């Protein structure tokens, strides 16, 4: 097969990838989108195998078999709560693959390498290796292997930025002296240390943004590899992935009212920010028994359920769905309010609820549902906290101030199910607890909801 013909097949792949993303715009066409991308990648791989004759078929088969043996169980078995971890792993794998190809290409070209190629390759390797180690740390934090709290110390940012500067400086020397392989390993080392420090310094609550940023880096390093190999399919696919990560990161950081730089270098959650209520008198929250809550819910005509990550931790999404069913049977209108950062990665909460068989037309985005709280009888908050705190609107000295929140406080009654009175990720007390129309129910979300459902069922 001639090289030209391969280029046309690559264009077909590019077209299929673009269509795939277009079809992801709605649920009804989304599966077609997935299959279009699969077709695109199959065409790309087959075209490459025809055009570039690989001598070592044994190694190729080994790699493909290993990839299938590892990949298929991940693809089939991973639970929906663990999808963020799996995403971190896939960013780690993807960026390591790209970084290793970069190293190979550098060694391959040897003495004949020119300075522009070394410069682009260096950028590609730095990006690849820092994304690799950063994604490993993100995985460890999401999986709970290490603490989700940011590990920061005095001068943390100065140290990590100096290491990044050292990596770039080493890359500059490598451009001048490409035959000094020691510089290559030094540069990789600096990139790994920088990636490690960067993500260690970021808190668990910021993971949705971090994952999106790592997504973007992984894409950019793939695009950089495309420049080196003069492969336009790689450039386009990398750019699509890079821009996707960028947009998701922007949506996430906007939803937390923070800038990228603040997420990356802010170290929020490192210590408790004690901006507590200083209004004078002691405030008291009213705790209620489950029967009282059941009585209020039994007469409600409209209910909005506000799920947060705490719901997923308590594995309560199926009970939440059952509560919704019981209320629907009683002729009550039930909607779910989804905050953009609910969960551990962009869109995570929607997936968790879809897994529990909640129909997606019951899931409402923040912008659409906020005006409806005013005419809602009861808002039930399960495992969410900071994203419901009215302090974001009312207290300019609060760390949450300015963050877009769900206007739960505007509902006629509020039921807040919570394990304890502890603060959320931001370390701030929730003003919602102390509103006169808030009913606090303390306990494990799953147990409370199970009892609540039993209590509702016993009412006629």
């Amino acid at each position: 097969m001639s090289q030209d013909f391969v280029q046309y097949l690559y264009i077909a792949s590019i077209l299929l990838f673009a269509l795939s993303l277009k079809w992801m715009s709605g649920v009804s066409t989304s599966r077609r989108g997935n299959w279009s991308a699969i077709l695109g990648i199959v065409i790309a791989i087959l075209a490459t195998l025809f055009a570039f004759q690989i001598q070592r078929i044994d190694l190729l088969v080994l790699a493909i078999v290993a990839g299938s043996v590892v990949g298929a169980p991940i693809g089939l078995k991973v639970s929906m709560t663990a999808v963020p971890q799996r995403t971190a792993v896939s960013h780690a794998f993807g960026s390591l693959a790209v970084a290793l190809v970069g190293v190979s290409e550098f060694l391959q070209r040897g003495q004949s390498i020119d300075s522009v190629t070394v410069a682009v390759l260096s950028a590609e390797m730095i990006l690849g290796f820092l994304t690799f180690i950063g994604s490993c740390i993100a995985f460890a934090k999401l999986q709970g292997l290490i603490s989700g709290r940011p590990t920061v110390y005095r001068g943390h940012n100065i140290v990590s930025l100096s290491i990044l500067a050292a990596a770039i400086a080493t890359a500059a020397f490598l451009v001048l002296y490409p035959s000094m392989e020691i510089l290559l390993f030094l540069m990789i080392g600096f990139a790994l240390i920088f990636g490690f420090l960067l993500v260690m310094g970021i808190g668990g609550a910021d993971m949705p943004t971090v994952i999106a940023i790592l997504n973007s880096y992984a894409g950019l390093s793939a695009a950089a590899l495309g420049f080196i190999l003069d492969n336009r399919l790689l450039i386009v696919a990398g750019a699509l992935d890079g821009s996707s990560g960028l947009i998701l990161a922007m949506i996430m950081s906007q939803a937390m009212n923070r800038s990228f730089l603040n997420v990356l270098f802010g170290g929020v959650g490192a210590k408790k920010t004690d901006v507590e209520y200083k209004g004078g008198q002691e405030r008291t929250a009213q705790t209620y028994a489950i029967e009282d809550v059941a009585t209020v819910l039994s007469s409600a005509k409209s209910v909005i359920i506000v799920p947060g990550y705490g719901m997923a931790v308590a594995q309560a999404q199926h009970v939440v769905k059952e509560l919704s069913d019981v209320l629907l049977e009683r002729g009550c209108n039930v909607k779910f309010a989804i905050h953009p950062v609910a969960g551990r990665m962009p869109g995570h909460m929607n997936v968790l609820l879809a897994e529990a068989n909640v129909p997606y037309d019951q899931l409402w985005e923040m912008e659409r549902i906020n005006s409806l709280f005013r005419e809602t009888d009861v808002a039930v908050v399960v495992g969410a906290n900071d994203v419901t705190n009215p302090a974001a609107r009312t207290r300019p000295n609060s760390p949450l101030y300015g963050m877009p929140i769900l206007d739960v406080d505007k509902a006629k009654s509020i039921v807040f199910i919570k394990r304890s009175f502890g603060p959320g990720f931001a370390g701030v007390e929730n003003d919602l607890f102390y509103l006169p129309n808030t009913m606090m129910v303390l306990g494990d979300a799953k147990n409370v909801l199970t009892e609540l459902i039993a209590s509702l069922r016993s009412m006629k």
Partner: protein
Amino acid sequence: MTSLIQQDLAINLLIFVLATFLGIELIRHVSRLLHTPLMALTNAISSVSIIAALIVMSESDNRLILILVTIAVGLAFTNIVSGFMITERILRMFRRHQDKN
């Protein structure tokens, strides 16, 4: 002598910039409902970098390089397999009220 990368740099940069704009416009219209499967999908798409590993594999007989690219092919293929499977699994879960089961 100018290298290959320099000759085509301008055209490739143009392609990169246009593809980024295309990506931003396409992703902006993706429903928020689907951001998790979107990330799984774009991740699988970017694993098309497997072709870079295949190309280097075809050009080299150096032992170290062959080891590195074999690992790269394995990692990228893991992402391709698991990425598309997870995307499919997640997308199958989304259903409307009337089309339950």
